[in-house]
Protein backbone atom coordinates (compact mmCIF):
# COMPACT_ATOMS: atom_id res chain seq x y z
CA UNK A 1 0.00 0.00 0.00
CA UNK A 2 1.46 3.39 -0.92
CA UNK A 3 2.00 6.18 1.60
CA UNK A 4 -0.61 8.22 -0.22
CA UNK A 5 -3.20 5.55 0.49
CA UNK A 6 -2.08 4.83 4.04
CA UNK A 7 -2.25 8.50 5.03
CA UNK A 8 -4.92 9.94 2.75
CA UNK A 9 -6.26 12.46 5.25
CA UNK A 10 -2.82 13.81 6.06
CA UNK A 11 -2.10 14.19 2.35
CA UNK A 12 -5.40 15.95 1.71
CA UNK A 13 -5.01 18.38 4.61
CA UNK A 14 -1.45 19.31 3.73
CA UNK A 15 -2.27 19.61 0.02
CA UNK A 16 -5.21 21.87 0.77
CA UNK A 17 -3.56 24.08 3.39
CA UNK A 18 0.09 24.39 2.40
CA UNK A 19 -0.76 26.17 -0.85
CA UNK A 20 -2.73 28.83 1.07
CA UNK A 21 0.12 29.07 3.55
CA UNK A 22 2.70 29.74 0.83
CA UNK A 23 0.52 32.43 -0.74
CA UNK A 24 -0.03 34.14 2.62
CA UNK A 25 3.68 34.20 3.42
CA UNK A 26 4.40 35.69 0.04
CA UNK A 27 1.93 38.46 0.81
CA UNK A 28 3.43 38.94 4.28
CA UNK A 29 6.90 39.15 2.74
CA UNK A 30 5.73 41.89 0.38
CA UNK A 31 4.05 43.80 3.22
CA UNK A 32 7.22 43.57 5.28
CA UNK A 33 9.40 44.73 2.38
CA UNK A 34 7.13 47.68 1.59
CA UNK A 35 7.06 48.71 5.27
CA UNK A 36 10.84 48.46 5.50
CA UNK A 37 11.25 50.54 2.35
CA UNK A 38 8.86 53.15 3.72
CA UNK A 39 10.75 53.38 6.99
CA UNK A 40 14.04 53.68 5.17
CA UNK A 41 12.64 56.43 2.92
CA UNK A 42 11.15 58.48 5.74
CA UNK A 43 13.53 57.68 8.59
CA UNK A 44 15.74 54.96 10.02
CA UNK A 45 15.57 51.18 9.93
CA UNK A 46 17.05 49.88 13.15
CA UNK A 47 15.04 46.77 14.02
CA UNK A 48 13.41 43.75 12.39
CA UNK A 49 10.16 44.61 10.64
CA UNK A 50 9.58 40.95 9.80
CA UNK A 51 9.45 40.16 13.53
CA UNK A 52 6.45 42.49 13.95
CA UNK A 53 4.69 40.86 10.99
CA UNK A 54 5.63 37.28 11.92
CA UNK A 55 4.38 37.52 15.48
CA UNK A 56 0.91 38.81 14.55
CA UNK A 57 -0.83 37.55 11.39
CA UNK A 58 0.50 33.98 11.02
CA UNK A 59 -0.86 32.72 14.35
CA UNK A 60 -4.39 33.77 13.45
CA UNK A 61 -3.98 32.20 10.03
CA UNK A 62 -2.91 28.87 11.51
CA UNK A 63 -5.75 29.00 14.00
CA UNK A 64 -8.08 29.41 11.00
CA UNK A 65 -6.52 26.38 9.32
CA UNK A 66 -7.01 24.40 12.54
CA UNK A 67 -10.67 25.40 12.52
CA UNK A 68 -11.00 24.43 8.85
CA UNK A 69 -9.31 21.06 9.40
CA UNK A 70 -12.17 20.03 11.68
CA UNK A 71 -15.13 21.94 10.26
CA UNK A 72 -14.50 20.94 6.64
CA UNK A 73 -12.40 17.80 6.54
CA UNK A 74 -13.78 15.75 9.43
CA UNK A 75 -17.19 15.71 7.70
CA UNK A 76 -15.61 14.86 4.33
CA UNK A 77 -13.76 11.93 5.85
CA UNK A 78 -16.76 10.44 7.62
CA UNK A 79 -18.89 10.93 4.49
CA UNK A 80 -16.38 8.81 2.60
CA UNK A 81 -16.63 5.95 5.07
CA UNK A 82 -13.65 6.83 7.24
CA UNK A 83 -13.87 6.83 11.01
CA UNK A 84 -13.38 9.85 13.23
CA UNK A 85 -10.59 7.96 14.99
CA UNK A 86 -8.76 7.43 11.70
CA UNK A 87 -9.12 11.12 10.89
CA UNK A 88 -7.85 12.25 14.28
CA UNK A 89 -4.84 9.93 14.17
CA UNK A 90 -3.79 11.69 10.96
CA UNK A 91 -4.60 15.11 12.40
CA UNK A 92 -1.67 15.04 14.85
CA UNK A 93 1.03 14.68 12.16
CA UNK A 94 -0.85 17.30 10.15
CA UNK A 95 -0.58 19.76 13.04
CA UNK A 96 3.15 19.14 13.28
CA UNK A 97 3.67 19.25 9.50
CA UNK A 98 1.80 22.52 9.17
CA UNK A 99 3.55 24.14 12.14
CA UNK A 100 7.00 23.03 10.91
CA UNK A 101 6.28 24.31 7.38
CA UNK A 102 5.01 27.65 8.64
CA UNK A 103 7.93 27.98 11.09
CA UNK A 104 10.31 27.30 8.21
CA UNK A 105 8.73 30.13 6.24
CA UNK A 106 8.99 32.40 9.29
CA UNK A 107 12.68 31.53 9.63
CA UNK A 108 13.30 32.16 5.93
CA UNK A 109 11.73 35.59 6.48
CA UNK A 110 14.30 36.41 9.20
CA UNK A 111 17.08 34.99 7.03
CA UNK A 112 16.19 37.06 3.98
CA UNK A 113 15.62 40.17 6.07
CA UNK A 114 18.97 39.63 7.82
CA UNK A 115 20.72 39.47 4.45
CA UNK A 116 19.07 42.68 3.25
CA UNK A 117 19.84 44.50 6.51
CA UNK A 118 23.47 43.36 6.41
CA UNK A 119 23.83 44.56 2.82
CA UNK A 120 22.31 47.91 3.74
CA UNK A 121 24.33 48.18 6.91
CA UNK A 122 21.26 48.31 9.19
CA UNK A 123 21.05 46.86 12.66
CA UNK A 124 18.98 43.62 12.65
CA UNK A 125 17.66 43.79 16.23
CA UNK A 126 14.47 42.36 17.68
CA UNK A 127 11.92 45.04 18.65
CA UNK A 128 10.91 42.96 21.70
CA UNK A 129 12.35 40.12 23.76
CA UNK A 130 11.66 36.57 22.64
CA UNK A 131 12.90 33.16 23.67
CA UNK A 132 15.41 33.30 20.83
CA UNK A 133 17.98 35.89 21.74
CA UNK A 134 18.45 37.66 18.42
CA UNK A 135 17.14 37.81 14.88
CA UNK A 136 20.04 35.75 13.56
CA UNK A 137 19.48 32.75 15.89
CA UNK A 138 17.80 30.77 13.12
CA UNK A 139 17.65 27.43 14.93
CA UNK A 140 16.04 29.12 17.92
CA UNK A 141 13.63 31.03 15.69
CA UNK A 142 12.58 27.84 13.88
CA UNK A 143 12.07 25.86 17.10
CA UNK A 144 10.21 28.66 18.86
CA UNK A 145 7.82 29.32 16.00
CA UNK A 146 7.19 25.60 15.49
CA UNK A 147 5.87 25.27 19.03
CA UNK A 148 4.13 28.66 18.97
CA UNK A 149 2.22 27.98 15.74
CA UNK A 150 1.50 24.39 16.73
CA UNK A 151 -0.33 25.67 19.82
CA UNK A 152 -2.44 28.12 17.81
CA UNK A 153 -3.38 25.43 15.27
CA UNK A 154 -4.40 23.03 18.03
CA UNK A 155 -6.44 25.75 19.76
CA UNK A 156 -8.32 26.45 16.51
CA UNK A 157 -9.08 22.78 15.96
CA UNK A 158 -10.20 22.40 19.56
CA UNK A 159 -12.68 25.27 19.38
CA UNK A 160 -13.94 24.04 16.01
CA UNK A 161 -14.46 20.51 17.33
CA UNK A 162 -16.30 21.85 20.34
CA UNK A 163 -18.59 24.16 18.34
CA UNK A 164 -19.38 21.29 15.94
CA UNK A 165 -20.96 19.49 18.92
CA UNK A 166 -22.88 22.45 20.30
CA UNK A 167 -22.58 26.18 20.88
CA UNK A 168 -22.48 25.58 24.64
CA UNK A 169 -19.60 23.10 24.31
CA UNK A 170 -17.84 25.55 22.02
CA UNK A 171 -18.15 28.46 24.42
CA UNK A 172 -17.04 26.33 27.34
CA UNK A 173 -13.77 25.36 25.62
CA UNK A 174 -12.68 28.92 24.87
CA UNK A 175 -10.91 29.30 28.28
CA UNK A 176 -9.03 26.05 27.60
CA UNK A 177 -8.06 27.31 24.14
CA UNK A 178 -6.70 30.50 25.75
CA UNK A 179 -4.66 28.42 28.16
CA UNK A 180 -3.27 26.40 25.25
CA UNK A 181 -2.04 29.48 23.37
CA UNK A 182 -0.88 31.37 26.44
CA UNK A 183 2.67 29.86 26.47
CA UNK A 184 3.16 31.75 23.21
CA UNK A 185 3.43 34.92 25.27
CA UNK A 186 6.53 33.46 26.92
CA UNK A 187 7.92 31.98 23.71
CA UNK A 188 7.72 35.20 21.71
CA UNK A 189 7.44 37.68 24.55
CA UNK A 190 4.33 39.78 25.21
CA UNK A 191 2.54 40.31 21.88
CA UNK A 192 -0.34 42.25 23.37
CA UNK A 193 -2.79 39.40 23.03
CA UNK A 194 -5.56 39.92 25.62
CA UNK A 195 -3.00 41.58 27.83
CA UNK A 196 -1.90 38.24 29.28
CA UNK A 197 1.64 38.58 28.01
CA UNK A 198 2.59 41.13 30.62
CA UNK A 199 1.25 38.89 33.38
CA UNK A 200 3.16 35.89 32.05
CA UNK A 201 6.37 37.84 31.64
CA UNK A 202 6.34 38.13 35.42
CA UNK A 203 5.98 34.36 35.75
CA UNK A 204 9.09 33.50 33.90
CA UNK A 205 10.45 33.65 30.41
CA UNK A 206 12.89 30.87 30.72
CA UNK A 207 13.23 28.22 28.06
CA UNK A 208 12.18 25.47 30.46
CA UNK A 209 8.97 27.19 31.52
CA UNK A 210 8.00 28.32 28.02
CA UNK A 211 8.77 25.08 26.22
CA UNK A 212 7.55 22.85 29.04
CA UNK A 213 4.27 24.67 29.32
CA UNK A 214 3.92 24.67 25.53
CA UNK A 215 4.47 20.93 25.20
CA UNK A 216 2.01 20.17 27.99
CA UNK A 217 -0.53 22.54 26.43
CA UNK A 218 -0.14 20.80 23.05
CA UNK A 219 -0.69 17.38 24.59
CA UNK A 220 -3.70 18.58 26.61
CA UNK A 221 -5.16 20.25 23.50
CA UNK A 222 -4.82 17.09 21.39
CA UNK A 223 -6.35 14.99 24.17
CA UNK A 224 -9.27 17.40 24.44
CA UNK A 225 -9.84 17.30 20.66
CA UNK A 226 -9.83 13.49 20.78
CA UNK A 227 -12.32 13.47 23.64
CA UNK A 228 -14.66 15.88 21.92
CA UNK A 229 -14.46 14.70 18.29
CA UNK A 230 -14.13 10.94 18.83
CA UNK A 231 -17.89 10.39 18.66
CA UNK A 232 -19.13 13.73 17.39
CA UNK A 233 -22.43 13.40 15.53
CA UNK A 234 -22.60 14.44 11.89
CA UNK A 235 -25.90 16.29 11.78
CA UNK A 236 -27.40 17.16 8.41
CA UNK A 237 -26.15 20.41 6.94
CA UNK A 238 -28.57 23.29 7.14
CA UNK A 239 -29.56 24.33 3.62
Amino acid at each position, binding site marked *: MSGRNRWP*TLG*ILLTAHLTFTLVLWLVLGIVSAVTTAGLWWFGNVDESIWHNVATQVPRWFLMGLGIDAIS*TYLRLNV*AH*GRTRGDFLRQLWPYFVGLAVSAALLQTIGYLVEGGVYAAAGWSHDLPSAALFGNANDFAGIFATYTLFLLLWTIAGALVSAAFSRSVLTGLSTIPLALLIISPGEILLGPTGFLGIGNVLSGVGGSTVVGVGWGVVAAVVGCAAIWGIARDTP*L*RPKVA
Partner: protein
Amino acid sequence: MTPSIETAGLTMRYGTAPALADVSFSLSGPKICGLLGRNGSGKTTLLSVLAGYLRQSAGTVLVDGEPVFENATATGKVCLVRGTGDASSPRVSVRDLIDFAGRLRPTWDAGYAAKLLEMFAVPLNRTPKTLSHGKQCALGVTMGLASRAPVTIFDESYLGLDAPSRYAFYDALLADVLAHPRMVIIATHLIEEVGTLFEDVLIVHDGRLLLHDDADTLRAAGTAVTGDATLVDSFTLGLDVLNEKTLGRTKSATVYGPLDDRRQAQARQVGLDLGPIALQDLFVHLTSGGSR
Protein backbone atom coordinates in the same frame (compact mmCIF):
# COMPACT_ATOMS: atom_id res chain seq x y z
CA MET B 1 -21.17 -9.12 -3.29
CA THR B 2 -24.05 -9.70 -0.87
CA PRO B 3 -24.26 -6.72 1.43
CA SER B 4 -26.50 -7.01 4.45
CA ILE B 5 -27.95 -4.64 7.00
CA GLU B 6 -29.50 -5.71 10.26
CA THR B 7 -30.93 -3.55 13.01
CA ALA B 8 -32.39 -4.76 16.30
CA GLY B 9 -34.16 -2.58 18.84
CA LEU B 10 -32.60 0.49 17.25
CA THR B 11 -33.46 3.55 19.32
CA MET B 12 -32.29 7.12 18.91
CA ARG B 13 -32.99 10.11 21.10
CA TYR B 14 -31.92 13.72 20.68
CA GLY B 15 -31.64 14.73 24.32
CA THR B 16 -34.93 13.50 25.67
CA ALA B 17 -36.77 13.75 22.34
CA PRO B 18 -37.24 10.34 20.71
CA ALA B 19 -36.40 10.11 16.99
CA LEU B 20 -36.40 6.32 16.52
CA ALA B 21 -37.95 3.70 18.77
CA ASP B 22 -37.20 -0.01 18.67
CA VAL B 23 -36.61 -0.28 14.93
CA SER B 24 -35.75 -3.81 13.81
CA PHE B 25 -35.36 -5.04 10.24
CA SER B 26 -32.92 -6.80 7.97
CA LEU B 27 -32.00 -6.30 4.33
CA SER B 28 -29.70 -8.48 2.32
CA GLY B 29 -28.42 -8.89 -1.18
CA PRO B 30 -28.12 -6.46 -4.04
CA LYS B 31 -31.43 -4.66 -4.51
CA ILE B 32 -33.06 -1.24 -4.56
CA CYS B 33 -35.03 -0.45 -1.41
CA GLY B 34 -37.37 2.45 -0.83
CA LEU B 35 -37.49 4.15 2.56
CA LEU B 36 -40.71 6.07 2.88
CA GLY B 37 -41.99 8.27 5.67
CA ARG B 38 -43.57 11.62 6.28
CA ASN B 39 -41.57 14.69 7.27
CA GLY B 40 -40.01 14.16 10.70
CA SER B 41 -40.76 10.43 10.71
CA GLY B 42 -37.11 9.50 11.39
CA LYS B 43 -35.86 8.58 7.89
CA THR B 44 -32.74 10.74 7.96
CA THR B 45 -31.92 9.72 11.52
CA LEU B 46 -32.25 6.03 10.62
CA LEU B 47 -30.00 6.41 7.57
CA SER B 48 -27.49 8.52 9.50
CA VAL B 49 -27.16 5.75 12.08
CA LEU B 50 -26.78 3.13 9.32
CA ALA B 51 -23.86 5.12 7.87
CA GLY B 52 -22.18 5.79 11.22
CA TYR B 53 -22.87 9.52 11.05
CA LEU B 54 -24.69 9.24 14.39
CA ARG B 55 -24.32 6.82 17.27
CA GLN B 56 -27.56 5.13 18.28
CA SER B 57 -28.88 5.56 21.81
CA ALA B 58 -29.72 1.85 22.10
CA GLY B 59 -29.98 -1.29 20.00
CA THR B 60 -27.65 -2.72 17.38
CA VAL B 61 -26.85 -1.82 13.78
CA LEU B 62 -24.80 -4.26 11.72
CA VAL B 63 -23.48 -4.01 8.16
CA ASP B 64 -22.28 -7.37 6.91
CA GLY B 65 -22.40 -8.54 10.53
CA GLU B 66 -20.15 -5.73 11.81
CA PRO B 67 -21.23 -2.96 14.21
CA VAL B 68 -21.18 0.31 12.31
CA PHE B 69 -20.26 3.24 14.53
CA GLU B 70 -16.53 4.01 14.34
CA ASN B 71 -15.80 0.68 12.68
CA ALA B 72 -13.97 1.27 9.40
CA THR B 73 -14.72 -2.26 8.19
CA ALA B 74 -18.42 -1.40 8.19
CA THR B 75 -18.44 2.33 7.41
CA GLY B 76 -16.18 1.79 4.41
CA LYS B 77 -18.96 -0.26 2.83
CA VAL B 78 -21.57 2.47 3.21
CA CYS B 79 -22.02 5.71 1.29
CA LEU B 80 -24.83 7.98 2.46
CA VAL B 81 -25.73 11.08 0.48
CA ARG B 82 -27.97 13.33 2.58
CA GLY B 83 -29.46 16.22 0.65
CA THR B 84 -26.71 17.74 -1.46
CA GLY B 85 -24.23 15.47 0.29
CA ASP B 86 -21.82 15.60 3.22
CA ALA B 87 -18.84 14.79 0.98
CA SER B 88 -18.98 18.37 -0.20
CA SER B 89 -17.78 21.70 1.13
CA PRO B 90 -18.84 25.14 -0.10
CA ARG B 91 -15.28 26.43 -0.43
CA VAL B 92 -13.54 23.41 -1.97
CA SER B 93 -13.59 23.09 -5.76
CA VAL B 94 -15.47 20.23 -7.41
CA ARG B 95 -12.17 19.01 -8.86
CA ASP B 96 -10.61 18.79 -5.38
CA LEU B 97 -13.69 17.12 -3.91
CA ILE B 98 -13.52 14.45 -6.60
CA ASP B 99 -9.79 14.04 -5.97
CA PHE B 100 -10.41 13.65 -2.22
CA ALA B 101 -13.10 11.02 -2.89
CA GLY B 102 -10.59 9.01 -4.90
CA ARG B 103 -8.05 9.17 -2.08
CA LEU B 104 -10.47 8.34 0.71
CA ARG B 105 -12.71 5.67 -0.81
CA PRO B 106 -11.00 2.55 -2.18
CA THR B 107 -14.02 1.59 -4.34
CA TRP B 108 -14.23 5.05 -5.99
CA ASP B 109 -14.54 5.00 -9.79
CA ALA B 110 -12.98 8.24 -11.04
CA GLY B 111 -13.80 7.58 -14.69
CA TYR B 112 -17.46 7.02 -13.91
CA ALA B 113 -17.53 10.17 -11.75
CA ALA B 114 -16.12 12.20 -14.64
CA LYS B 115 -18.81 10.82 -16.98
CA LEU B 116 -21.60 11.64 -14.53
CA LEU B 117 -20.34 15.18 -13.94
CA GLU B 118 -20.20 15.70 -17.68
CA MET B 119 -23.72 14.28 -18.06
CA PHE B 120 -25.06 16.63 -15.36
CA ALA B 121 -22.92 19.51 -16.71
CA VAL B 122 -21.24 20.19 -13.34
CA PRO B 123 -18.12 22.36 -13.88
CA LEU B 124 -14.98 21.03 -12.18
CA ASN B 125 -13.38 24.40 -11.53
CA ARG B 126 -16.26 25.85 -9.50
CA THR B 127 -16.92 25.54 -5.77
CA PRO B 128 -20.28 24.14 -4.62
CA LYS B 129 -21.34 27.49 -3.14
CA THR B 130 -21.23 29.01 -6.63
CA LEU B 131 -23.36 26.21 -8.12
CA SER B 132 -27.15 26.17 -8.32
CA HIS B 133 -29.00 23.88 -5.91
CA GLY B 134 -29.67 21.50 -8.77
CA LYS B 135 -25.99 21.24 -9.68
CA GLN B 136 -25.11 20.70 -6.02
CA CYS B 137 -27.59 17.81 -5.98
CA ALA B 138 -26.00 16.46 -9.16
CA LEU B 139 -22.61 16.55 -7.45
CA GLY B 140 -24.13 14.73 -4.47
CA VAL B 141 -25.64 11.89 -6.51
CA THR B 142 -22.38 11.62 -8.45
CA MET B 143 -20.57 11.08 -5.15
CA GLY B 144 -23.04 8.33 -4.32
CA LEU B 145 -23.06 6.53 -7.65
CA ALA B 146 -19.31 6.71 -8.27
CA SER B 147 -18.55 5.55 -4.72
CA ARG B 148 -19.55 2.04 -5.83
CA ALA B 149 -20.06 1.39 -2.11
CA PRO B 150 -21.73 -1.98 -1.42
CA VAL B 151 -24.45 -0.07 0.44
CA THR B 152 -25.28 3.22 -1.28
CA ILE B 153 -27.95 5.43 0.24
CA PHE B 154 -29.64 8.49 -1.24
CA ASP B 155 -31.62 10.54 1.26
CA GLU B 156 -33.74 12.91 -0.82
CA SER B 157 -30.50 13.77 -2.52
CA TYR B 158 -31.86 14.20 -6.02
CA LEU B 159 -34.99 16.23 -5.21
CA GLY B 160 -33.30 19.43 -6.36
CA LEU B 161 -32.65 18.03 -9.84
CA ASP B 162 -34.94 19.09 -12.65
CA ALA B 163 -37.13 16.40 -14.22
CA PRO B 164 -34.78 15.49 -17.13
CA SER B 165 -31.84 15.22 -14.72
CA ARG B 166 -33.87 13.10 -12.31
CA TYR B 167 -34.75 10.67 -15.10
CA ALA B 168 -31.10 10.63 -16.17
CA PHE B 169 -30.23 9.79 -12.56
CA TYR B 170 -32.76 6.92 -12.44
CA ASP B 171 -31.38 5.52 -15.71
CA ALA B 172 -27.79 5.79 -14.49
CA LEU B 173 -28.72 4.19 -11.17
CA LEU B 174 -30.46 1.23 -12.78
CA ALA B 175 -27.67 0.67 -15.30
CA ASP B 176 -25.00 0.89 -12.61
CA VAL B 177 -26.77 -1.44 -10.19
CA LEU B 178 -27.15 -3.98 -13.00
CA ALA B 179 -23.48 -3.68 -13.94
CA HIS B 180 -22.21 -3.49 -10.35
CA PRO B 181 -24.79 -5.21 -8.11
CA ARG B 182 -25.12 -3.59 -4.70
CA MET B 183 -27.70 -2.50 -2.19
CA VAL B 184 -29.23 0.91 -2.83
CA ILE B 185 -31.59 2.59 -0.38
CA ILE B 186 -33.59 5.57 -1.58
CA ALA B 187 -35.47 7.80 0.85
CA THR B 188 -37.91 9.91 -1.06
CA HIS B 189 -41.19 11.78 -1.18
CA LEU B 190 -41.42 11.30 -4.97
CA ILE B 191 -42.98 7.89 -4.55
CA GLU B 192 -44.94 7.78 -7.81
CA GLU B 193 -41.87 8.77 -9.80
CA VAL B 194 -39.36 6.36 -8.31
CA GLY B 195 -41.62 3.67 -6.83
CA THR B 196 -41.26 1.34 -9.81
CA LEU B 197 -37.55 0.92 -9.02
CA PHE B 198 -38.18 -0.48 -5.55
CA GLU B 199 -37.85 -4.17 -4.79
CA ASP B 200 -38.24 -3.72 -1.03
CA VAL B 201 -40.08 -1.00 0.83
CA LEU B 202 -39.69 0.20 4.41
CA ILE B 203 -42.12 2.71 5.86
CA VAL B 204 -41.27 4.58 9.05
CA HIS B 205 -43.81 6.61 10.93
CA ASP B 206 -43.36 8.56 14.16
CA GLY B 207 -39.94 6.97 14.65
CA ARG B 208 -41.19 3.40 14.36
CA LEU B 209 -40.97 0.90 11.54
CA LEU B 210 -44.50 0.66 10.29
CA LEU B 211 -43.95 -1.81 7.50
CA HIS B 212 -41.25 -3.75 5.68
CA ASP B 213 -42.15 -5.93 2.73
CA ASP B 214 -41.22 -6.57 -0.85
CA ALA B 215 -42.73 -4.08 -3.23
CA ASP B 216 -44.76 -6.62 -5.22
CA THR B 217 -46.50 -7.84 -2.08
CA LEU B 218 -47.35 -4.26 -1.17
CA ARG B 219 -48.68 -3.52 -4.62
CA ALA B 220 -50.92 -6.58 -4.23
CA ALA B 221 -52.28 -5.24 -0.94
CA GLY B 222 -54.98 -3.47 -2.88
CA THR B 223 -56.38 -2.97 -6.34
CA ALA B 224 -56.74 -0.06 -8.73
CA VAL B 225 -60.20 -0.30 -10.32
CA THR B 226 -60.61 1.67 -13.56
CA GLY B 227 -63.58 2.08 -15.86
CA ASP B 228 -66.87 3.89 -16.32
CA ALA B 229 -67.42 6.15 -13.31
CA THR B 230 -70.88 4.80 -12.52
CA LEU B 231 -69.67 1.21 -12.67
CA VAL B 232 -66.62 1.97 -10.52
CA ASP B 233 -68.80 3.70 -7.90
CA SER B 234 -71.17 0.76 -7.88
CA PHE B 235 -68.36 -1.80 -7.65
CA THR B 236 -66.46 -0.05 -4.85
CA LEU B 237 -69.51 0.64 -2.71
CA GLY B 238 -68.71 -0.63 0.79
CA LEU B 239 -65.01 -1.20 0.03
CA ASP B 240 -62.10 0.74 1.63
CA VAL B 241 -61.35 3.32 -1.09
CA LEU B 242 -58.00 5.06 -0.60
CA ASN B 243 -58.00 7.37 -3.59
CA GLU B 244 -60.15 8.33 -6.56
CA LYS B 245 -59.34 10.08 -9.83
CA THR B 246 -61.88 11.05 -12.48
CA LEU B 247 -61.28 12.07 -16.07
CA GLY B 248 -64.49 12.66 -18.00
CA ARG B 249 -66.62 9.54 -17.64
CA THR B 250 -63.64 7.42 -16.64
CA LYS B 251 -62.77 6.90 -13.02
CA SER B 252 -59.96 5.11 -11.20
CA ALA B 253 -60.40 4.08 -7.57
CA THR B 254 -57.75 2.56 -5.35
CA VAL B 255 -59.22 -0.09 -3.10
CA TYR B 256 -57.36 -1.36 -0.03
CA GLY B 257 -57.56 -5.05 0.86
CA PRO B 258 -57.71 -8.21 -1.21
CA LEU B 259 -60.43 -8.84 -3.81
CA ASP B 260 -61.52 -12.45 -3.90
CA ASP B 261 -61.92 -14.37 -7.17
CA ARG B 262 -65.67 -13.78 -7.27
CA ARG B 263 -65.25 -9.99 -7.01
CA GLN B 264 -62.50 -9.97 -9.61
CA ALA B 265 -64.63 -11.95 -12.03
CA GLN B 266 -67.55 -9.63 -11.35
CA ALA B 267 -65.40 -6.59 -12.17
CA ARG B 268 -64.15 -8.04 -15.43
CA GLN B 269 -67.65 -9.09 -16.40
CA VAL B 270 -68.83 -5.45 -16.32
CA GLY B 271 -65.73 -4.25 -18.17
CA LEU B 272 -63.65 -2.80 -15.31
CA ASP B 273 -59.85 -2.96 -15.44
CA LEU B 274 -58.03 -4.21 -12.34
CA GLY B 275 -54.41 -3.32 -11.61
CA PRO B 276 -51.90 -3.16 -8.77
CA ILE B 277 -52.22 -0.45 -6.15
CA ALA B 278 -49.96 2.62 -6.37
CA LEU B 279 -47.36 2.64 -3.58
CA GLN B 280 -48.08 6.30 -2.92
CA ASP B 281 -51.77 5.61 -2.25
CA LEU B 282 -50.84 2.83 0.15
CA PHE B 283 -48.27 5.05 1.86
CA VAL B 284 -50.76 7.87 2.32
CA HIS B 285 -53.34 5.44 3.67
CA LEU B 286 -50.93 3.91 6.18
CA THR B 287 -49.43 7.14 7.44
CA SER B 288 -52.32 9.60 7.33
CA GLY B 289 -53.39 8.62 10.85
CA GLY B 290 -57.06 8.47 9.99
CA SER B 291 -57.13 11.92 8.40
CA ARG B 292 -58.30 10.43 5.13
